[in-house]
């Protein structure tokens, strides 16, 4: 099974279940909201694809020259252009390109390896996801926990320290934080490896390209240990920076819900502060936070690109940078469009999740 399809299954199934629940049990308002939301993502992807397509074309720099470099004689360039259909009129290229986007076939990479891009992505997407998922979990956990603590006890020591932490982390350039961790934990203390996904000397056959899963399936415990060790620093880097964003979001919302009448009413009923924080302030505060998680995906992906560069992590981000530096035109386009699909998909799922959370929307 192609790793890419596997990844789509891991994410696709829960989203599909959510969708079925919405159409089965949701109110008419919710159903029309979801259909609108789905229909809206199509123009969104189209716009992004078009922006990327034209950004590549109209700006200076002839892709063919820069790809083939000096050794590209006239007729080699001609054959190359012909082969990749670069001579066809713009409109046809655009039509084919849009067709590819929606059929998820990204054609072949322009340079030497000429491997179908889908295979390239198949290797790299799991690598990026293997880092992004734990980072997001860390970010959400830490961010929401500290955010609630700060929001409930406003103008107290915890509130100020949490805010200082969130501003510091927000200002921290993610690639520098990575370098610092490498320096401290890698070079000085030597606790963790500082680059790559696994110790090169350990053999591990790749099934899903999710090394954690592969090493578990194949029962290769030594590989598992090495993979986990390699995961520590990148996850910590990306996770901490993201936690700053969630902390601020949760804090502002918790403060606002804490000022609502129903919190005062609950307190007047003698409900314990713990229950009030959990069931009244936090639950209501999480609704806006969930909606904004969709938007944070953009920061997550950008962060991933930088973290991969610092830790030489063979993921989508690094692949994009390498392809850009080597002027591989179609690869760059497809990776960017893939990111667009990824972002659109996540924000759509988060929106549906939001509507399931809030009874006012559900009924």
């Amino acid at each position, binding site marked *: 099974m192609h790793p890419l399809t596997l990844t789509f299954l891991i994410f696709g199934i829960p989203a599909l279940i959510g969708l079925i629940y919405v159409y089965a049990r949701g109110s008419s308002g919710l159903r029309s909201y979801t259909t609108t939301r789905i229909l809206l993502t199509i123009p969104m992807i189209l716009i992004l694809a078009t922006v990327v397509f034209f950004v590549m074309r109209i700006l200076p720099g002839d892709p063919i020259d820069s790809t083939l470099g000096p050794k590209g004689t006239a007729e080699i360039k001609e054959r190359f252009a012909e082969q990749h259909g670069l001579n066809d009129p713009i409109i046809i290229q655009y039509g084919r390109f849009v067709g590819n986007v929606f059929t998820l076939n990204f054609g072949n990479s322009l340079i030497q390896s000429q491997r179908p891009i889908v295979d390239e992505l198949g290797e790299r997407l799991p690598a990026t996801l293997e880092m992004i998922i734990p980072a997001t979990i860390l970010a959400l956990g830490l961010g929401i926990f500290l955010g609630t603590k700060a929001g409930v006890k406003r*103008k107290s020591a915890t509130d100020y320290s949490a805010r200082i932490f969130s501003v510091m982390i927000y200002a921290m350039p993610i690639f520098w934080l990575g370098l610092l961790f490498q320096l401290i934990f890698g070079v000085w203390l030597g606790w963790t490896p500082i680059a790559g996904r696994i110790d090169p000397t350990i053999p591990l056959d790749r099934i899903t390209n999710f090394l954690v899963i592969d090493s578990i399936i194949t029962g290769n415990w030594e590989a598992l240990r090495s993979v986990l060790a390699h995961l520590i620093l990148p996850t910590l880097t990306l996770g901490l920076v993201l936690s700053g964003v969630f902390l601020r979001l949760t804090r502002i919302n918790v403060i606002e819900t804490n000022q*609502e*009448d*129903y919190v*005062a*009413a*609950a*307190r*007047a*009923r*003698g*409900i*314990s502060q713990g*229950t009030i924080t959990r*069931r*009244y302030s936090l*639950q*209501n505060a999480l*609704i806006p936070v969930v909606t904004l998680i969709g938007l944070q995906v953009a920061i997550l992906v950008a962060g991933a690109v930088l973290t991969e560069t610092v830790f030489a992590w063979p993921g989508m981000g690094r692949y994009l940078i390498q392809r850009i530096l080597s002027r591989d035109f179609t690869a760059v386009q497809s990776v960017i469009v893939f990111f667009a699909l990824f972002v659109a998909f996540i924000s759509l799922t988060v929106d549906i999740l939001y509507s399931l959370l*809030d*009874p*006012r929307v559900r*009924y």
Partner: protein
Amino acid sequence: MTAETLYSIRNLTVEYDTRIGGVRAVDDLTLDIYKGEILGLVGESGCGKSTLGKGMMRTITTPGHIVGGELWFEGVDLMTLSELEMSNIRGNRIGMVFQDPMTSLNPLMRISEHLIEAIRTHYPRMSEDAARARAVDMVKDLGIREERIDDYPHQFSGGMRQRIMIALVLALNAALIIADEPTTALDVIVEAQFLDLLRSLREEFELTILLITHNIGVVAELADRVAVMYAGKAAEVGPVESVFLDTKHPYSRGLLKSVPNIDVDDQELFKMTGAPPNLIAPPSGCRFHPRCPRAVDLCTDDEPPLIDVTGDGHLASCWIYSDLPNRPTDGVG
């Protein structure tokens, strides 16, 4: 009417610190609430009535704090209780109903969850089913269909939600209900329905209700006794008929006569001069003296005590009713 006192407030003082300085919203206030009565607490905005309500429940949060005074309830001074002991009383012995029904219920919790949570907070030993049964009874008592108990707050109208708030209080057989502007956010007809409900509940559950409102008509219609507040102090306290018909304090006179009355034709509204006082630096002596037609030097010098003018519980804090020689005269009007 020497009824038994349920809640006795002694010299309560509550201060808010704002950007411009400390503000005494409630200043050395003494007031008794008798068992089984409906006491109307009326006054204009900024007079401290809502703060008094919160003070009695000790739910004042920063920037406000209770500076002094005693809160005697069922033989205990609530000021001496720890926060935990106090939270046992809140909801269980003293219930509170708020002004805006739209925002007083947690939008993410069903009505049944609200009720069961409140009941089991104070009676943890009670099983889930028993709590739910009690909740259903309570809701039916207040005219809400049983099958709607699992709906969410946004599925109810304003009037219905206010009844649910009452249900939350009665579910715990609270002895005292503090209702802070309960009808202000309701339409006229729903308000009238709600007042009738409060009156019938008072009989059925022998409740004592502190009705805090700015609407003088509501107080006249529902309250047995009324306390008029001005600038953090009690200006006049007494049975509703004698306060309305034989008003003693000049401020109450002005206040009660400046309200349009639908039963009176070609009514002449009383127009009070000046504006509510500046509580950071309140006027010296009697706080109403700058706006009082009867004010004399004595009023500007020292504060008048709350005197029992008629001898049967009709109190007023005004020098007219003292026996001092230089006291102001009481030309009616």
